[in-house]
């Protein structure tokens, strides 16, 4: 077990990267705290697998270093790093039995046969394949194969970290939930550092203590699920986390007031003058609908009932927006204005969150 440090890490698959777009991973500095469970969340193609492969040593970063407990392992081969990784694409050794598959990583490391048998049985119980240990792996269903891959990843107890690259994509929802619970249990029992890659926010938010959100080759925010919800550091986080995502409006901000479409919107904090493209972001949970009075003129385009709450689709002066109402709350009759909870508004300049002045003052 080890603390994993990424030091000025960057990677490009091209030999001679020119523009910013050529980098699959932009410069990255981050510590993965020993024993913590992380979810790595981001849309497809944002560099999640690339990052995992660099950590496990399958890929050498174009730039920067990677340290395990302070020791530089940038050039160390995978074997030396002692990391378990489960891939999105299920990998099984066809000619081996299920049991031999599970035993493979231990056997390769020359473990004691009695210990191997013990571990194989324990893992088989975890993935629910005790009955099939003797069966050849060839011809199993995709989700059985993925369970074996997962099992092979978990069979070693002494690993520095466990990396899961969207491991449950092909598994049916019920089994998914069960396996995720098992993974959490495993983390609880052994305290391995775990990084769990997913593009499913529910999966990320339920699995991890800390969620790392990636966007376009960058880590844009690391935080608890609550932090991601309340203070998205980047408009992408606001948009990606939550369903529907955060509403964004172009605005001018000065002091404690934002001006949106010519209408003043009070803010919960005071802001220094901000440059760049300024927007305010507010989650649909904090959008209030009313007939007349203060606020931005808005038109209701559709109301969707999704069970526990209603999603109200709005047109706010040409900008699409959403509001969420509790199941019991009716849509106010003749609603033509929206206003926002002042404390729930975040200010963004060029997509990055701007810290309010008084907080900055306090920190200084």
């Amino acid at each position, binding site marked *: 077990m080890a603390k994993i440090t990424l030091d000025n890490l960057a990677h490009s698959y091209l030999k001679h990267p020119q523009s910013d777009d050529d980098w699959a991973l932009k410069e990255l500095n981050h510590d993965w705290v020993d024993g913590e469970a992380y979810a790595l969340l981001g849309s497809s193609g944002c560099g999640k697998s690339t990052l995992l*492969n660099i950590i*496990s*040593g*399958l890929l050498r970063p174009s730039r920067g270093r990677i340290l395990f407990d302070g020791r530089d392992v940038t050039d160390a*081969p*995978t*074997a030396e790093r002692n*990391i*378990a*990784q489960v*891939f*999105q*694409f299920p*990998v099984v*050794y*066809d*000619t*081996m039995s299920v049991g031999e598959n599970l035993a*493979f*990583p231990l056997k*390769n*490391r020359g473990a004691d046969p009695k210990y191997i048998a013990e571990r194989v049985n324990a893992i088989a119980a975890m993935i629910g394949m005790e009955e099939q240990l003797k069966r*050849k792996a*060839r*011809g199993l269903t995709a989700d059985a194969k993925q369970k074996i*891959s997962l099992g*092979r*990843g978990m069979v070693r107890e002494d690993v520095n970290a466990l990396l899961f690259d969207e491991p449950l994509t092909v598994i049916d929802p019920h089994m998914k939930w069960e396996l995720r619970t098992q993974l959490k249990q495993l983390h609880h029992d052994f305290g391995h550092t775990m990084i769990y890659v997913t593009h499913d926010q529910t999966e990320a938010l339920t699995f991890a203590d800390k969620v790392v959100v990636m966007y376009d080759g960058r880590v844009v925010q690391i935080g608890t699920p609550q932090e991601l919800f309340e203070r998205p550091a980047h408009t992408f986080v606001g948009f990606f986390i939550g369903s529907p995502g955060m509403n964004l409006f172009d605005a001018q901000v000065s002091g404690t007031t934002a001006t949106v479409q010519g209408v003043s919107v009070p803010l919960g904090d005071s802001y220094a003058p901000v440059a760049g493209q300024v927007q305010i972001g507010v989650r649909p949970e904090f959008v209030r609908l009313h007939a007349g009075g203060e606020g931005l003129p808005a038109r209701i385009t559709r109301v969707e009932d999704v069970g526990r709450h209603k999603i109200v689709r709005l047109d706010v002066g040409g900008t699409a927006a959403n509001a969420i109402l509790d199941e019991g709350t009716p849509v106010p009759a003749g609603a033509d204005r929206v206003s926002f909870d002042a404390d729930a508004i975040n200010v963004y300049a060029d997509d990055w969150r701007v810290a309010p002045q008084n907080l900055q003052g306090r920190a200084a």
Partner: protein
Amino acid sequence: MNKTVNQKAWFLVLPVLILVGFSAVIPLMTVVNYSVQDTFGNNVFFWAGLDWFRDMLESERMWNALGRQLVFSGIILAIEVPLGIFVALNMPKKGFWASFCLVLMSLPLLIPWNVVGTIWQIFGRVDIGLLGYVLAKLGVNYNYTQNVIDAWATVIVMDVWHWTSLVALLAYAGLQSIPDAYYQAAKIDQASRWKVFRFIELPKMAGVLMIAILLRFMDSFMIYTEPFVVTGGGPGNATTFLSIDLVKMALGQFDLGPAAAFSLMYFLVILLISWVFYTVMTNLDKRDGV
């Protein structure tokens, strides 16, 4: 559901039947015809029953040719299959050099059989051939027209040169179909190079390798042109394989009856071996699909 019954559809198969009839069945029947008759010339034939077959089965000459044939096929398979796999494993996976290797390796496959024979016939000559001359200069007593071992070595090396590419290309295609994730997982599992070969590459290549072995066996079992051009079946009968012997008998000695019986048995042996291969292969598939 009522199916429309229309027996006229059979006429659609007729052209194929006629084609197969003329190209395969009728020529085969003439051979069958010869194999059960005898003649003293003048185009007069009389019934000989299964005498020719009995003769051929008792003929030491045919058993010797069959023995040589099996040894030859065995040796070239034992060389070409591992060598082909080895070459495939070491070929570049992508980029310019991958295409370059593919073209280079396809070249021997494109050369006509008798040209291959001629190339090696000249190549191995002690007076003007590069190989023969160099060997002679190095003090090796090499002469494929007189020395049995040299003749065999030449014929085998020639076949390996001509056909290893086929095995390599098929194995390469098998290797290319393995997703990267397998190699990555093997690294994570700390599998040795040998285990990667044994548990990932070999199983994924098994299908194409079976085809390669079948093709190479069939083809080498029927080999004629190349050894005929190089050694003419000699020295003595040392490289007289089944086809060469058959032609000697049929055209050289004009023993049509025995030659016909011989070729029918030859045909049956090939059919039998192909059938065994086919059964083994489909059984392997079935075992996979449980």
